[in-house]
């Protein structure tokens, strides 16, 4: 085996001042080809193993591989870690690692003054500077004087470190990212052995590359140690984290394994009919790994075939799931109507992205809520839920399946690009403690009718083909109540329309009351849903620290909403609905509760920053306080 293996002990390091930090945000940025996503995940893994709480945000370009060095090709990965609870990937980086001028150009605006820049100086060539639109070299023209800049010629360093290994220049170039990683390991005092093992495992099939990357990694680490560029190393003490086994999980992974878990809990095969689309495809890719879990993945010719095949599978007795994003969701519209008429269980996963139309395919947004709740012909009610964090995707996926099966209805599950690709450390649940999902296929022909209803849930019986004596026909035409024959009777139609609505409304009985973060009354309630959970919670925490009477209400159930929402809203002077759209939940709340809520909208393909929310809230509170003052003045 390789020569490195034998020297796997930690390199000796001279002591250097070590400062303790509560919270750090590091962003790696470089060309798509620079391996920033890998660097980010590796660093994150180590951060997790060091016991920090954390959250991450990968941000990659729409192009597969934009031309090297261009602004369009910049890829970034941000990790926020702390000894305190972490809710978001961080508003702004403390440390920005940039592998080329384009990465600097794109990311600099986010760096606060005084922030650290680690720049791969060798890539600041004339040609790269031009591609990034720089007239002069920012590392030299003094324009970065407000920051702590560490310019390192990584390429050269790596080349030196790997000399004599017989690698091609291209292969050497590919190791740069591990050099940067090594430097970060040194800076934040992470142990190197573990990472070296990890690198070796990653390049299992090519031990030579493994050696090279390990060498580059070490070179970076040693550089920190020896170059004495950095005045100090940092350490982030471990957070207080619930004991248990953890893994790193993205929203898409959590959604996938949540769905598989649900199927196992229901003892049903899982059928996923899907058509690839960013940022949902990974759920399909993940599910495709599990044929040994009774998972059938069917990559259909389009989204319409994907959902209709899934409806067929649900009819045939599978847990039917179809996964997609905005434009694909649009194509499923007609078939959702069929699912609603057929009253079969169906889970639809929409990983929202920037719209309308093709929009911003790789960016996040929350603008498909209206579509989920209202976007069909006819009165066509479905359940709509939304996970709040990557880890919550697991739980909400199970919840989606549970509701769909129990109520024989369609459940739309709204994830988004931010959840999909964002990762967090996730505590594995105890498999044995997970509640089974009861499934009762009806097999008794006695008194059977296809549209008989369970008196509690109004669900109709699930009878799968192959069951003797219960042959029957279903379809998209209006059905006669109970009997299920085609019916054009006017009264029957109204009855069925209302029954279908009532069936969905009754799901509220199993929806837990929404909990308020903060006090149950106050001056301001910030309402959110989906992936804004972290940012809103963090913002409310800050606002409360600053003494404001602010609370947060986060909705994971959008239709029907938890029963207590109206009451909660009524306890606050003002209601602010923060969404990554132009006010969709806002409209629903206003209509339902006649509350004069206002909206805070951000539609930039990027999540809220905590600071943005804080500013907005204080603006409202200020206005309020001012208004109060005025009112007072008048009264006097």
């Amino acid at each position, binding site marked *: 085996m390789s020569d490195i293996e034998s020297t796997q002990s930690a390199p000796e390091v001279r002591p250097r001042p070590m400062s303790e930090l509560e919270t750090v945000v590091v962003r790696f940025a470089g060309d798509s080809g620079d391996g920033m996503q890998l660097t980010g995940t590796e660093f994150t893994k180590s951060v997790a193993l060091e016991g920090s709480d954390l959250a991450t945000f990968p941000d990659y370009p729409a192009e597969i591989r934009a031309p090297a060095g261009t602004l369009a090709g910049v890829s970034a990965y941000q990790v926020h870690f702390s000894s305190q609870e972490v809710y978001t990937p961080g508003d702004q980086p403390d440390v920005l690692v940039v592998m080329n001028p384009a990465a600097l150009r794109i990311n600099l605006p986010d760096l606060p003054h005084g922030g650290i820049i680690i720049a791969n100086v060798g890539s600041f060539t004339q040609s790269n500077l031009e591609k990034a639109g720089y007239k002069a070299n920012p590392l030299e023209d003094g324009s970065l004087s407000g920051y702590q800049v560490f310019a390192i010629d990584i390429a050269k360093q790596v080349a030196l470190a790997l000399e004599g290994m017989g690698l091609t220049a291209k292969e050497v170039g590919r190791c740069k990212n591990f050099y940067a990683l090594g430097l970060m390991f040194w800076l934040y005092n992470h142990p190197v052995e573990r990472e070296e093992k990890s690198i070796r495992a990653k390049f299992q099939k090519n031990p030579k590359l493994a050696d090279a990357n390990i060498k580059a990694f070490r070179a970076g680490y040693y550089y920190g140690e020896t170059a004495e560029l950095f005045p100090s190393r940092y350490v982030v003490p471990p957070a207080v984290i619930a004991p248990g086994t*953890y893994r790193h999980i993205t929203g898409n992974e959590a959604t996938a394994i949540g769905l598989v878990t649900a199927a196992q809990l229901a003892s049903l095969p899982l059928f996923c009919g899907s058509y690839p689309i960013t940022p949902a495809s990974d759920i399909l890719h993940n599910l495709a790994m599990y044929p040994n879990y009774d998972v059938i993945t069917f990559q259909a010719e389009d989204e319409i075939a994907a959902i209709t095949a899934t409806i067929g599978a649900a009819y045939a007795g599978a847990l039917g799931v179809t996964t997609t994003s905005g434009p694909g969701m649009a194509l499923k519209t007609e078939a959702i109507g069929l699912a609603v008429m057929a009253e079969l269980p169906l889970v639809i996963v929409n990983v929202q992205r920037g719209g309308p139309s093709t929009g911003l395919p790789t960016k996040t947004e929350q603008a498909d809520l209206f579509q989920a709740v209202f976007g069909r012909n006819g009165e066509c009610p479905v359940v709509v839920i939304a996970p709040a964090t990557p880890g919550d995707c697991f739980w909400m996926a199970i919840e989606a399946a549970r509701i769909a099966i129990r109520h024989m209805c369609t459940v739309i599950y709204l994830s988004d690009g931010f959840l999909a690709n964002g990762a967090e450390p996730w505590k594995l649940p105890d498999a044995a403690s997970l509640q089974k999902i009861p499934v009762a296929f009806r097999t008794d022909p006695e008194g059977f009718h296809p549209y008989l209803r369970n008196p509690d849930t109004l669900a109709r019986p699930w009878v799968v083909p192959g069951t003797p004596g219960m042959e029957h026909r279903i379809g998209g035409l209006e059905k006669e109540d109970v009997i299920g024959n085609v019916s054009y009777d006017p009264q029957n139609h109204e009855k069925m329309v209302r029954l279908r609505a009532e069936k969905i409304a009754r799901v509220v009985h199993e929806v837990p009351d929404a909990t308020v973060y903060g006090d149950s009354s106050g001056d301001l309630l910030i309402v959110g849903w989906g992936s804004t959970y972290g940012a809103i919670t963090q913002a409310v925490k800050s606002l409360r620290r600053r003494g404001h009477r602010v609370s947060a209400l986060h909705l994971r159930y959008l239709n029907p909403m938890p029963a207590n929402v109206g009451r909660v809203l009524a306890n606050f002077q003002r209601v602010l609905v923060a969404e990554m759209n132009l006010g969709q939940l806002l409209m629903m709340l206003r209509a339902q509760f006649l509350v004069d809520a206002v909206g805070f909208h951000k539609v930039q393909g990027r999540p809220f920053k905590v600071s943005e929310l804080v500013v907005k809230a204080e603006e409202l509170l200020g206005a309020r306080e001012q208004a109060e003052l005025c009112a007072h003045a008048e009264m006097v």
Partner: protein
Amino acid sequence: MTMSQCNIVQAPKLTRKDFISDQDVRWCPGCGDYAILASIQRVMPELGVPREKMVFVSGIGCSSRFPYYMNTYGFHSIHGRAPAVATGIKITRPDLMVWVVTGDGDGLSIGGNHLIHTMRRNIDLKILLFNNRIYGLTKGQTSPTSEQGMKTKSTPFGALDRPFNPLSVAIGSAATFVARSIDIDSPHLQYVLRRAAEHKGTAFVELYQNCNVFNDGTWESVTDKDVRSDRLLVLEHGKPLVFGKERKKGIRMRPDMSPEVVEINGNTSGLLVHDETRRDEGYHFMLSRLASPEFPEPIGVLRAVREPTYEELMAEQCRTVIQERGKGTIEKLLHAGETWVVS
């Protein structure tokens, strides 16, 4: 729920009546769909498949009301999507026998893509396309099989589009079973249905069907008693391509690979000999193009080739993965990948 192979158990002997549902049949009096329904209800009991193991799936159209009339499981889905719905059913439950009933509009217009992809995948579905060369249910617009120039409600001055030949589309999509029959020719239709039922893989069957309200007599020029023996080429596996009232005409190939009609006198040598099972689709495709008035139109089984079905391959793949990795459990699923312990 297992994904077992289609397993035709010995069912109690069924009769035609067992397959008649309690629903009133709601086609126009005289519609060709009645004859097809009757033939299908006659064939079903012969297949030895219990009623509950049969599913009829359809889209939207007059033809697509079909499932209501069969006393089996049935799904009257949405316009054009029956092949996809049926695919989901069949992949989930390979033990079911799944029939798709569609029309020339449902199957070839809005549903054309699902149809060709189903055939490409070779899902074990039996697809019956009722071709009346018109949209019946919506009261008479042009369909993708309507003849060029035909005046319909939507083309008052004549249709501009050239028609599809459904059999050519099927063979172009690599269908493993392709056949054609006629609504009113019950014995032949029953034969073709039986053959479709026997085939493993997608069986595509075009049925000439008369819509006596909006396109009456559209097939008369080939199917009429008086002319049919000259205008139809009844295919039989292993037999030369012979037709005509006195069976005095045959089809031969020119050296340039084009077909021609020749007069024969008892001697059929030199004629093409029908072979359903050939792998090279060129011959089958040529057959599909034979069209009146230049040629007789073929009915019967054009092509019947055994290839692994999608479900068979899926089952095999599933077995292999289970062999390699074992059956999954929630525990294994959760603990996959890198984990760490906080204590």
